[in-house]
């Protein structure tokens, strides 16, 4: 078994801090599963046609849910991804900031300066406006 040689799994540093997270996931999954399986046993079952229709706020559905969405959603999602990644880069930088000092500050200012160019461009082109 390859994993015994420590190639896939290190048995050296077991992330024991995450045991509560694992237990939490197990309880959450068990709650969902038990509710799902137990529900049909205890609830009344009396369907008729109207009850089985898909509904949204009580109004009967009139057309296909798959409609093309405006392009704006795409550009907003794309800009969100990019600024999300920018923020991710800032986190490890902030954690080690006291060890890299001024050097680190200058490089992060350079990093943000390049992205501010994109931000100004996006703003100028009206990509951030919804209407």
């Amino acid at each position: 078994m390859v994993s015994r040689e420590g190639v896939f799994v290190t048995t050296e540093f077991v992330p024991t801090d995450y045991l509560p997270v694992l237990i939490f996931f197990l309880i959450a999954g068990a709650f969902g599963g038990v509710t799902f399986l137990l529900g049909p046993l205890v609830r009344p079952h009396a369907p008729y046609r109207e009850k089985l229709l898909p509904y949204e706020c009580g109004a009967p559905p009139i057309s296909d849910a798959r409609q093309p969405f405006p392009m704006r959603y795409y550009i907003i999602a794309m800009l969100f991804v990019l600024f999300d990644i920018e923020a991710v880069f800032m986190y490890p930088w902030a954690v080690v900031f006291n060890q890299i000092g001024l050097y680190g500050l200058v490089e992060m200012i350079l990093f943000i300066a390049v992205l501010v160019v994109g931000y100004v461009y996006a703003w100028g082109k009206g990509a951030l406006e919804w209407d």
Partner: protein
Amino acid sequence: MMEAMFIYLATVCVVCAVLTVTLRQPVYNVLSLLTLFFHVAGLYVLLNAEFLAVVQIIVYAGAILVLYLFVLMLLNVRTQSRHLHRQWPFAVLILGAVGAMLVGALHSGVWGSASGESTAAAIHEIGDTQAIGLRLYTDYLLPFEVASLVLLVAMIGAIVLTKKSLIDDHIDQIKE
């Protein structure tokens, strides 16, 4: 315990990856990709790479998946009758060969143990986020700054590609 977790996570990863490319409903593909991302995050936790695990969830499961869903809704992709690309035998052949190479390399122990300064023990000592920070912002400064240029190009590219459509939408609204 660790091995049981690894086997669970790895199995779900492989199953979800296969479902992502074989299911017929595009939305189901994206949702199985979401499950895949979460289980990959679990694998990172097993490797004591907590920062990567959180980034995996925030960036991949949070942002990139939303982008995929928007693209699906934008393109209005319907259920496809022919869901496998005609080149799939080639893809299986090449990926099978690459996979066999990886398994062979792992078995031969080429990558069996980390060498150099950043060993598992050293990273455990200072913390994985600190280890990434110290390496990235000192030794790998140039790739980090190049990353900002890549992000800039992606941003401008997305706006240029959608600009025409944005203007069209605007004109439509004015006409209304």
